[in-house]
Structure formats: structure tokens, C-alpha cells
């Protein structure tokens, strides 16, 4: 997964600039931050996640905050 958003991982949380529905900067809670890190590090894909984590990842995809990797 990849993102075109600028983001900050600091003080235990991930912050995504313009990641909110009205372009706000959003802060993810600890669990969501862990999902974000795993997705961007290629350690997981939304399909590999379960329950709330999967829903969260899919919502990021639907909102365009996360994008699929470009196929080479």
C-alpha cells in the first residue's frame, strides 16, 4: 500500500495531513496507527486483516487516503 498524504509518526500515534473528510489532519489511535504502519511497510494488506482492522484499512482505501501499490 502507499499514500500520497504527508504523515507523521510521533509520540505513539500516526497523524495524516488532510486525512479527514474535510481535509483535516487526523490522528489515529494506537491500534489504528499500528495498522497504518503495517500496511505501508508492506507487512499486511487489507485482505489479510480481520474485523475492525480490516474495516479501517478498507475505509482508508475507499477515501483515497491509502492507495494500492502501482503494478510494475
Amino acid at each position, binding site marked *: 500500500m502507499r499514500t500520497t498524504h*504527508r504523515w507523521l509518526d*510521533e509520540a505513539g*500515534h500516526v497523524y495524516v495531513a488532510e486525512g479527514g473528510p474535510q481535509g483535516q*489532519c487526523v*490522528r489515529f489511535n494506537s491500534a489504528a496507527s499500528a495498522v497504518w504502519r503495517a500496511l505501508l511497510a508492506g507487512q499486511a494488506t487489507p485482505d489479510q486483516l480481520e474485523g475492525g482492522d480490516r474495516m479501517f484499512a478498507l475505509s482508508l482505501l475507499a477515501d483515497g487516503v491509502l492507495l494500492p501499490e502501482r503494478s510494475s
Partner: protein
Amino acid sequence: MARTTPATRKTSGTRQGPEILRIAPALTPAEAAEFSPAMAFVNPSVGYSDRRKSKPIGLAYVMAYLRSHGLESEGFDFGGALREPELLAAEHRLDTYDIVGFSVYNESADNALRMAAWVKERNPAALVVLGGPHATAVAGHLVVAHPQVDLVVRREGEEPMLEIARRVAARRPVTGVLGTTWREPSGEAASREDPPFIEDLDSLPFPDARFTSDSGYPTLTYFDDVSGRLKPALTVNTSRSCPYNCSFCGVLTIGRRYRTRSPESVVEEIGYFRKRDGIPYQHIYFSDANFYVNPRRSLAVIEAIHAYDPGITVSFGTRVNQILRSEDVLARMKEIGLRFVELGIESASPTMLERLAKGVSPQVNVDAVRTLQRLGLEIVVDFIMFDPATTLADLRLNLSFLRRLGFYDYVPHEAIYTTLVLYQGTPIREFYERRHGRVFAPNELPDIVGLYENDDVAAVAAGMRWFRRAWQPAIDTALADGELCAEKWRAGGRTGDHLSQLQLDLVALRHVPYLYMQHLVEVAGTGLPVADEEYGAHLPTTGAPRTALPELIARVRESVGDEHLDRDPSLLTRFA
């Protein structure tokens, strides 16, 4: 007695000396009807300015109560004044009143006594009365050690002040009033027992009193994120005291009997002040020491306000354990206008919580915060980072708690600077007197800097004082301007790199004081001394891309540039 303007005011001349009060014959009914003592009620300076200064509500209640009994008085609020107390007393001719009452806190005791001395020197006939939490705690000392003080009114002031004013009006002795302490001719203190607490708070008139203030008052507002509107706000008190025993709390001095007002009375007060001020107040800050003691009662108050005007939002302060009592009540409160809760967290260390007699474990703090976060309610954090016996382990627990629960974003940054204040009359003050084998002077507010028991903690605290002096003003300004700018850009539909960078820079800027403290604690934990000259070397690099603090502030300033921004400090509570 007819009063004149301050510039032409003269002393009444109705009395020749303080003892006359006790021996003068009572006036005839006709004479008494014509004489009403000139009364001034004064809130002396606490020695520092406060941008969120509000009217002294205790004095306002007393003044309104006297007026409801036909006795007018004038109010003077010098709460945030930085000028010499004698100059303020002279400017406002406090020596021209028959009765001068001071509301005294530990912080303002010296200034109150200096003003009282100035008054007494120029008008020995004036009756000087002290009240408030500090005066209550050291009533005997005040009348014995300070000849300018005639009387101390302990605890609630309404009834004793009314009786005192009536006695002065009738030229009857003012000694022996219930709830007061005075000086006997022998020089010793004498007291009457406390009167019963005022049980029916609805019977009190609303705290409608005008104060002459040296600095005026900021317009009280609240920015409601939900409606996106800056609202005119009003402070309302719906209860008195608190049934808990927190060892540091000055409310204990006034007595622990918790009493409440009815929802109808609270609504009526809002309508009263809306009409008086011609302002459609849309947010109510409940100033109760503890609004949420009885969740159902608290809900009934908010329901009544919502029925009166569904556009009104509210906020209140309470303890963590009470938050866990009734999540359903809080959820309903949110539906009908609750916006934030000021939460007395105080510490994440079990030993500190025990010293503070909070009666809760750190897990209760965590659960309360998570409950409010789950409900989507904002939290205003009350925290005591440092007390004399704080250890590095305590500081680590505190920082870990703040970090874990997302409070590194929190502004204002007071939580990491706040030190315990050893108020007179509180159990924690007595605890440290015993622990340190010393007795603090009656009016002394001990400087915690000299009381730290752990050198590493003292070094961290000193580093935080340095940081606050050196960097906090620039951070506050950059955050205030930057948040407004980011909001303006976002609302205007601007997107792209500049907005993204500014948003992340603001997050980083919010983190800096916490990260700085975290670093100081880490360094101190390695046994390395943190020396004065090294404080600047510990400034963190932060943000994305990682940036040193001076450059981070400069980048935010550059982003803001020439944007025209309508500054309002309340907007600092927002997260752009």
C-alpha cells in the same frame, strides 16, 4: 448614607475609632433608617495576570445577598493586578468606606494585608473584614498578628456579613457574630461557632454584582467545534463544596458539605443574566468545584437548560471516579449539549495519587479518559506533575500516561508544568510540614523549588521552568496563528503541500514541550546531571521532516506569513 464619586469621597466620620463600634449606643430606628454603611468588597491581586480572569463569584454572592436585604456595596477586583496594592487602594479611595471586606486566598494574603494596612492607617474607623479560604484557615492568626484586621468571616460569607453590616448600621458591637473571629482587648483571638451551612442555595439571589477592575474582563467565549461557532459564554455555579477529601484542595477549608441548586433556579439565572447583559449566552461554563457528584441531578440541570434553549452548550469539572459511574448519563448529556469535561486526573503515579488522597488508582484515570474519548467528549486535563516527593519513576508514569492516551497533542501545555500548591489549611501542607520537620509561616505559600526531595526531579523541574520561559511564549503564538491559518486555508478549500506541511508542523509543535520533558527525564534517569547551561542542548527535533524547534517555529511563521487572522485564544482548544 449617600455616597459620592470616588474622587470626592470623604470618610464618613460617623465613628472616631475602632473601639467605638463596640460601645456606641444603638441608633434610634429613625437614625438607623437613614444610615447605611458604605461598603467595599475587594478581591486583591494574586500577583500575576490571568488572561482568563473571571469575576470573583464568592464576593458577588455576598454583595448580591446584602443588596437583597437593602444594603448596597461596591466591588473592586484587582485579581490580576501587577501594581502596588497601596497604589490601587489610593486610586480607588478604599479608605472612604465604613466597611472594607477582602476575599483572601493564600496567593493574595500579603496584598490583602497591605491594602488593609493602608486603609486602616488613613481611616482607623473603617471596619476591615477578611474572608475566603485562606482567611478561614488562619483566622486566629490574622486578627492577632495583623492589627489592621478587625474581623475574619470564616467559610460562607453571606449571613455573617449581613449581620456585621446591620450591626455597623445600628452602631452595635460587631464582635460575637456567628462564623467570625475577632481580636479581644487582650490581644487574643476569639471566635463564635460556625453558623449552619446555607442549605437552600435557591434562596440566594443570583451573583449579580459589578466590579471596578483595573484590567477589565476578557469577553467569555467558547468555540463550539460542532456548530463551528464562537459562542458568548457565561459562568454559572450550581452547587457548593465537594464531598471528597483530596488533600490539596482548598475547598476543604470552606467545609465539605455538598449542596446543590435546582435546575429551575439555574435556568432562571441564565435568563436573568441574558436579560441584564443583553447577550444571548450560548455556552455555560459550570464553575462548581464538582458538578457531577450526583449524575442524575447534573443531567436534570442540563436537561432543563436544553429545554430552555436547545442551542446552549455546557461544560463542567469533576473527578475521574464519577465519570465511570454512569456512561449513559454522559451520553445523554452529550446529545443535549455537553461539550467538554474538566477532569481532575492529577497524576498517573499510584504513590502520588495516594499522597493527593484521590482515592483512585491510575487505572481509574485511564478508564475515565477512555470513556470520555469513546463518547467523543473533549477533555480538559487537570494535572499535578510535580510535588516535593515526586520521583523520576513518577514522572515516567505521568509522561507514559499522557503519551498513551494521546495527550501529547494537548494544549495548553500546563499539565507538564503544574506543581503542587501547598495551600494553607490543606492536609497535604500539614503532611509536608511533618515530613520535612518544618512549619510554614501562616501566610506563606511555600515555593516548591526548595522542597524537592530528589535532585534529579529538581533538575527536570528546573529544566521545564527554563523551557517555559524560553520557548513556551513563541510556541503558543505560533500555534495560535498557525491553527487559525490552517483552518482558514482548509475552510477556503485550499489543499496541497503547504496545508499538509503546516498541519504536521502544528502537530509537532504541540508535541515539543512533552518531548522535551521526556528527554530531560531520560537523561536524568541515566544519572547524568542536567545542568542549567545545558537546557538548550536537550531541545528535541520533531515533525516530518524532523526539524529543530527554532526552525519549526520559523517554518510555521513563514507559512502564516501575512495572512490576516482574527486571533482568539479559545481557538487554541481546536485541532486543525
